């Protein structure tokens, strides 16, 4: 089969469309109610709705950080040193996550459907994959939830409980959260622990996006056909 035969087959498509009178605008009928319903559905699924969700998360995050800072400022005493450090660290991690969310909102605003196909698809998939970035950042706050309630007085009163329970648990969560921060990345998506951690349905799209990003990168690379 030659190239022109492929093209000729495709041309048959136009003929079929004409024959079937599919392109006859005059035969189409209005249906306002159906359109309005579909408009709503589209709005719910569009990037605009993603911006609204992320804006909501930014506001919620800012309120949480504000509360932590307020509590922290009212707890400035040696007796509450663990609380001060924990609240400060949790506020910082959440602040970083908020900045990343804001960055996502900027990215979304920058996505224009009339940019080249590869550029748009890459931005969209990067946006999905960056959900992993937020997750790994948020894992970093885990150890601070294990020790915020500790006080010097509590340690003096029951040092064994502190050294045998609180310290090991906090150390364990510190090690795990740092390890996850370093290792949660698309490159590890095929590893068992990663699949186990992100096996739920909502992560499927993120992982598929990561695979498509690889595909886009491969697509951009020049390929050399073997010489005949």
């Amino acid at each position, binding site marked *: 089969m030659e190239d022109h035969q*492929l*093209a000729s087959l*495709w041309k048959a498509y136009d003929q079929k469309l004409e024959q079937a009178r599919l392109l006859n605008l005059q035969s189409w009928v209005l249906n306002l109610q159906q359109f309005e319903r579909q408009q709503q559905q589209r709005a719910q699924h569009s990037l605009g709705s993603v911006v609204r969700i992320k804006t909501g998360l930014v506001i919620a995050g800012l309120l949480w950080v504000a509360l932590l800072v307020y509590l922290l400022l009212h707890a400035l005493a040696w007796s509450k040193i663990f609380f001060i450090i924990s609240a400060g660290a949790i506020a910082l991690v959440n602040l970083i996550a908020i900045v990343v969310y804001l960055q996502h909102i900027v990215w979304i605003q920058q996505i*224009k459907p*009339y940019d*080249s*196909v*590869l550029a748009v*698809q890459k931005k969209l998939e990067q946006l999905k994959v960056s959900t992993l970035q937020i997750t790994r950042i948020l894992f970093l706050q885990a150890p601070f939830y294990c020790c915020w309630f500790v006080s010097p007085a509590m340690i003096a009163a029951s040092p064994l409980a502190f050294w045998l329970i609180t310290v090991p648990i906090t150390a364990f969560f510190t090690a795990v959260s740092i390890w996850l921060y370093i290792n949660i990345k698309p490159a590890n998506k095929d590893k068992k622990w990663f699949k186990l951690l992100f096996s739920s349905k909502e992560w499927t799209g993120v992982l598929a996006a990561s695979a498509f990003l690889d595909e886009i990168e491969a697509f951009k*690379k020049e390929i050399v056909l073997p010489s005949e």
Partner: protein
Amino acid sequence: MFLRIIYKTVSHILMATSIDTSNFYKVIEDNKAILYKICHSYCRNESEHEDLVQEMIYHLWKSAESFNAEYRFSTWMYRVALNVAISFYRKSKTSVLLVPLSNLNNDIAASPVTTNKEIQFQLLQQAIQELKELDRALILLWLEEKSYQDISEIMGISETNVATRISRIKEKLKQQLRQQQNI
């Protein structure tokens, strides 16, 4: 069915806004065949057609305000339509199974498939639907007789890359058609 949806969508968008309706209407009118083909290539079933075509027209209309004269109109339109179609396809990619060809062609007059050319055409459509999303976009543009330069601008890759990839895809399609015909 499909084009009735286009008509409904355009009419309602235009009724709801004050943009220059005649120009936009003409744009859709002039390009409805390619919108139809792109839609067919990226939909898994009949029920998705309506959503995809509305999505395409909605984005064309929404982007029309920011249309930049530095682009050629066709480049701009193909970019929007393909971007929307690929994103839509990826969003709805829940099933690996392709829709039976008969379902995909419900819109087309229900004439019995008798000639060898018609069979080959259907096989070609099927083979295109089995390509990866980006390859599918490339071959659609080539079949629509876009130049390598146009395809390169629409896709965002070099002309050399376009040429080599299209050459590979064509070979793959031809091979599949040959195999199907031999079955």
